[in-house]
Structures are given as C-alpha cells and as structure tokens.
C-alpha cells in the first residue's frame, strides 16, 4: 500500500481517464455544432481545460492538509459535508454507468444485437468491481497495460492519408454550425477525468518537485489524439456527410482493409472496452472515497456494490441511444461544472483558512 504512482504513470492514467467513447462521436458533434473547421474547437476547449487544470494545481500547491477532505473539513464540519459527499459520489457513479451504457449501446450497433444490453452491462460491472477492489497503484499498473494495448490505434490514421484532401477543409471557420454552446459543453465533457487528480494526488510519488506536470502531459496526449482524429475526419469526410454519420471514427476504422482481416472495426472497437473500464473504475473509485468518508464504517467491497447498484438503478430506464445521449449531456454538464467548481471552492476554503492562520501541511 505504500507504493506510489510514478509521475509518468500518472500522465498515462490521466489520458486513459479522459479519453473514452466520446472520441467516436466527437467529429460529428463538431460538424453539427460548429460546422466548417470544427476541429479547431478541440484545441480551444483543450486550452480552457488547461486553465481548469491550473486551478487544480493551485489547490494542490497551497493545500492545508493531506487530501481534499482534510482541506474541506478544516473549515466545515464533516456532518455538514456529508450530504455533499454523497451527492458527489452518486453523480460520478451515475456518469460512469452512463458512459458504459453508451459504450454497450454502440457495441450493439456493430454486433451482439440479439443479446440483452443489461446483461452486457452487468458483465462490465463485474470487471469494474474486480478492478475497483484493487488499490489505486495496481489500477494504475493495469492502466499502463491497457494504454499499450490501445494507443497504437491512433496510427491507423496513416491508412487514410491517400483518401484525404485539403479542399474539403474549406477556408471558412465555424460556419453552418447549429449550437456552439452545447457543442463546447460536449467537447468539454470529452476531456473530463482530469479533475480526479484532486483525489489522486495523495497517492502520487511527490519526490520530484515537478510531478504535477505529468497531468498536463496526460492532457496533452488526449488533445493530440482528439485533435488529430477530428482533423483527419474533416479531411476524409465532406461536411454534410460528417453531419449525418453517427460514429465517424467507426467509419474511419471500418475503411481500413488489410489483406488479412477485412472488417477490423468490430475488433478495434472492443479494445476500447479497456479505455472505458479505466474511466469507469477511476470515477467509481473516487466515488468510493467520498462515500467512505461520509460513512466510514463501509468497506471497499460494500461501497463499490452500493455505488454500482445505485448508478444502475438510477439509469434503469435509460436504455435507448437517444435517452443515454440526453442524460449524458445533463450529467456531463454537471460533472463539467464540478470540475470547474470544486477547485474554486477549495481555493476559497484555503484562502479563508490561510487568513485565519491555519498551518500548511
């Protein structure tokens, strides 16, 4: 338990939490909401996220206490914080469950149409449970393996280069878009996951003074993967075609035909399970921390079961693609609000406590 996450592994962990099934829809979201040259928006939103991460880094630098809970409880008593912790735990576990539902539903577009989707979700939850039982150091080790198994997929894009044309990019910027605000929220939710570093930092090896930089590096990997994929989609699809294609990235992968295997998209998409699993486990893990802080009697096993079951019950009725999309938009919006709000609240608390003269840890 004394082992700590190395900064390098933290970067990979952050990337793996951030990137998920959103990538498959991202080019279409951009085309519908921003129109021409929407891929630039990825870079802009990524920059906003960097500011968000900067806020988190300030919290960690000026922290008073060992972890987020100690910061908060120095000012506000645990009893007041209790409902807040619970609410946060439920929100995050609901987000995790929704993400996995989204993934399962897309899987079922490709294959396993005759299987009941809730059965697949239960299987995914079994995996989450097993991985969630481990301590965070082991989770991060597993994440590294998952990273190696999935990162090569980005290189598949090389195959599409002969089929691209800069003509299709057009010189117009953000024309023919529909709803820029909704679009920004959607892209922002695509980057979510970095906020978990607020809960991760006590487990990170902080012997190097610049360890926090790895959070930026993780975010940078996400940005590169997102931006290059979206850029490629804009070169490969025409704008109106992109708007009507549900999962442009699936189409991109489906276009790759090698001599040996022809339809590699069903194989590649299943590999995405690992990315989803990391996102899922880390969100549930953070929720567990919150729940256990609120009710210290609970063991890890119990809190995992409680959160997974609560999340599944809350989203019991959400089984259709469109519903999942709407719920994800709302819960994603809340989660995005939390990502911005949490560090700000924490900074205010730190400010008040410093003013009162509390000692720094």
């Amino acid at each position, binding site marked *: 338990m004394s082992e700590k996450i190395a900064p390098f592994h933290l970067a990979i962990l952050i990337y793996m939490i951030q990137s998920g099934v959103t990538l498959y829809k991202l080019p279409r979201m951009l085309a519908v909401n921003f129109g021409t040259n929407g891929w630039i928006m990825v870079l802009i939103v990524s920059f906003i996220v960097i500011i968000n991460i900067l806020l988190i880094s300030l919290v960690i630098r000026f922290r008073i206490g060992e972890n987020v809970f100690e910061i908060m409880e120095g000012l506000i008593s645990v009893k007041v914080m209790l409902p807040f912790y619970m609410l946060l735990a439920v929100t995050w576990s609901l987000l995790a469950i929704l993400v996995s539902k989204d993934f399962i539903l897309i899987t079922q577009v490709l294959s396993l149409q*005759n299987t009941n989707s809730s059965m697949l979700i239960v299987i995914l939850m079994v*995996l989450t449970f097993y991985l969630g039982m481990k301590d965070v150091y082991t989770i991060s080790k597993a994440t590294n393996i998952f990273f190696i198994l999935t990162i090569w997929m980005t290189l598949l894009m090389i195959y599409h280069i002969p*089929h691209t044309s800069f*003509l299709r990019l057009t010189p117009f910027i953000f*024309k023919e878009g529909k709803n820029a605000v909704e679009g920004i929220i959607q892209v922002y939710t695509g980057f979510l996951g970095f906020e978990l570093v607020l809960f991760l930092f006590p487990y990170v090896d902080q012997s190097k003074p610049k360890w926090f930089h790895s959070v930026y590096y993780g975010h940078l990997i996400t940005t590169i993967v997102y931006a290059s994929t979206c850029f490629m989609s804009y070169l490969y699809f*025409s*704008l*109106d075609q992109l708007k*009507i294609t549900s999962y442009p990235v699936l189409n991109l992968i489906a276009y790759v*035909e090698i001599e040996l295997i022809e339809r590699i998209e069903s194989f590649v998409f299943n590999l995405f399970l690992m990315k989803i699993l990391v996102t899922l486990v880390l969100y549930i893990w953070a929720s567990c921390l919150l729940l256990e802080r609120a009710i210290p009697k609970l063991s890890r096993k119990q809190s995992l079961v409680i959160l997974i079951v609560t999340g599944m019950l809350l989203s019991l009725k959400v089984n259709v693609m469109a519903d999942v999309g709407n719920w994800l938009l709302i819960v994603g919006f809340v989660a995005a609000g939390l990502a911005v709000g949490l560090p700000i609240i924490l900074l205010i608390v730190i400010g008040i406590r410093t003013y009162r003269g509390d000692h720094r840890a």
Partner: protein
Amino acid sequence: MRNLKRLVIVFSLVFLLVGCNDQKIIETLGLMSVMCFDKATDSVEGNMLVTSTFPSITEESNRKETTIDTIAFSKKDAERKLAAKTEQEIVNGQIRSLIFSEDFAADGINQIIHSVERDQEIGSQVKVVISEGEASAILEAIPTESTGNYVDKMLRKESDQFNIPYLDIHYFSRDMHDDGIEPVAPLVGIEDGEVVVKGAALFRDDRYVGKLTIQESKLLLLMRGKVKKSDLVIKIPQETGYRTLYFTYNHSKAETKVKKKGTEIEQVDIHVSMVGSLLEDTGTKMNGNSSTDNNEVQKLIDGYLSNEAVRLIEILKEKKADSLGIKGYVRNSLTYQEWKKIKEEDLFQKIPINVTFSVILQNKGMLE
C-alpha cells in the same frame, strides 16, 4: 497476484461465452456478393428490380452461384424478398459491388446509398458501378463463379491504371454531400457477350446524367489531380490515315487556380504538367539522318490534349456535372458570404475554364 489471475479468467470466460449468444453458421448463409438494380415499371410490387447472386453450397459441397431476382421498393425490402426465395439465410456483409442500370441511376440513387451506409454489416469499400443497358445482364455475362469479386477486381485494376476514377460507397456519398464536387462512377457494358469497362458515368448530386469514354475519363483524371502512371494513345489525322503516338506518363500533376477580378470570378485555370516517354510513333520514317523531334512530338501531344480538354469541358458543362470539383476551388477562394451568394446559381456552367498542358518527353524508349 492470485486475484489478478482470477480477474483475467473471469474476464475471458465471461466475454467468450457471451460471444456464443449471437450465432451465425456459415453453411446456412447465403453470402450475397453483388446487387444489381434495374428499373421496374408498371409493377405494384415495387419500383426496382433487384438481382443478386450468392454461392449455394449443395450436399456435394461444390460451389455454384445462384442468381435470383425480385421486385421491391427498397434495398432492405429486396433483401427480405430475396431471402424468401431461398432456403439460405441471406446476409449482405460480403457485398463487393452495387451495379445500377443507367435508367435506374438517372432517377437518383440517394436512397440506396444511404441504405448501404446505414447498414452496419456492409463495409464502406463497396464499389458503385453503372452499367450500360440492364444491370442484371452484367451478372449473366461474367464467366467466373464469384461475380462480386470479379467486378471488384476488374474495377480496381482499371482505376489503378488511372483509366477510370476509383469509386466506392464512401467516395460516392462524400462527393454527393459535398457542395464543391460531383461524383464520377465507373461505367461497364457488354460487348459480344463480354463485360467491358466502358468509361466513366457522370453524376449531378445522386442522378446519373451522362457518360464519358475511357479516353475522356483518362483526361478527366489528369485534370482532377495527381496521376501516378497511365498512358494515352493519340491519333492525329494526316494526309493519308492517322499518325498514332503512344505516350506513357509517370508523373502528372494538375494545378487549379481561380482568377478573380475584385470579387468577380474571371476564370479558372487548370494547368496539367506531365512527364513521360514516347513508346510508339507511326508518323516518322526513321533513318540515320532524321530522328523524332522532341519538340514536335511534345507540341503534337499538347495540341491534341488541349483540344480534347475543351471538348470534355463542353460535355461536362452541357450535363451540368462538376466532376472536376471546380466549385470547390471557387468556394475556397471566396469568403463565406460571397460563397453563399453565388452557391445556388448555375456557377459551373458560367465560369470559363481554361486548360493548359505542359508535356515533357523524358525519353523515347530504345530508339532516338
């Protein structure tokens, strides 16, 4: 460590077992390799005659192609009706090409293209082909057992040699939805009972509007962009008969520039530069004193191509098919407001297009 092992076992077992839930047994499947669409008139059953072939596996397991047809209202409707006519379960995951007859394509094939794109079973490298005459006749004329593969290979060979444009479902849909270019499809036909590649089929949006011969479609490809390797047989009329030149080119580039006067578009220049070698010339009587004159040949080829290009552009303008993507170049030279203003007008017909060639003879084979 033991827990990790258990995790891996649970992971693999559970996932492998769920895979058994959706079964497909290959012996019971009718793998369609091609679908042909013809127009069906005066029928209450539907507006399209769909013909398809698939290998039927008999008891002796010798593969034979079965061809069946049906009249239907849509592609999926057709698949259902075809399946009703056979003991096999019809699946479309192995479709290699879609063949449309000229009549059918003239009414627009948007509906079929979208149906294919929506279908998750069908990949996006399915070829779209237009046939002169009936599409189902193509099936009968193909000698081999695997019809879909034959068409697929034939088209791939021709497009690799830059005789006809490459086109699959993705390309078609992409150009159909793009406001700067129109799709061009390969055209096949039947000559003396054999399937022959005839040239290119021009589209306006999703409607078939006209055709080009192989020679014209080669020129179209030259003007559209980079050509890696192709050849031209050039016939120049002389006092008696023709002088024939055979020119193979390895590199050819096309540069399209939009000339503007203020905000008005003056003309579009296409400059094609090609480097290649002369491998046949029936015009010169060679002897020790005279050899083929490089400049003369270059001029001849240049002049021939320029004339042909003018003719080609006239055809395109007459059919209102912007297969060269001229509108795309115009679009990219304008601001968004300007583009929106002129987009709906019959822009392509109005713009004067000027094509120039620069032909460079790299060598003349083994003779001077």
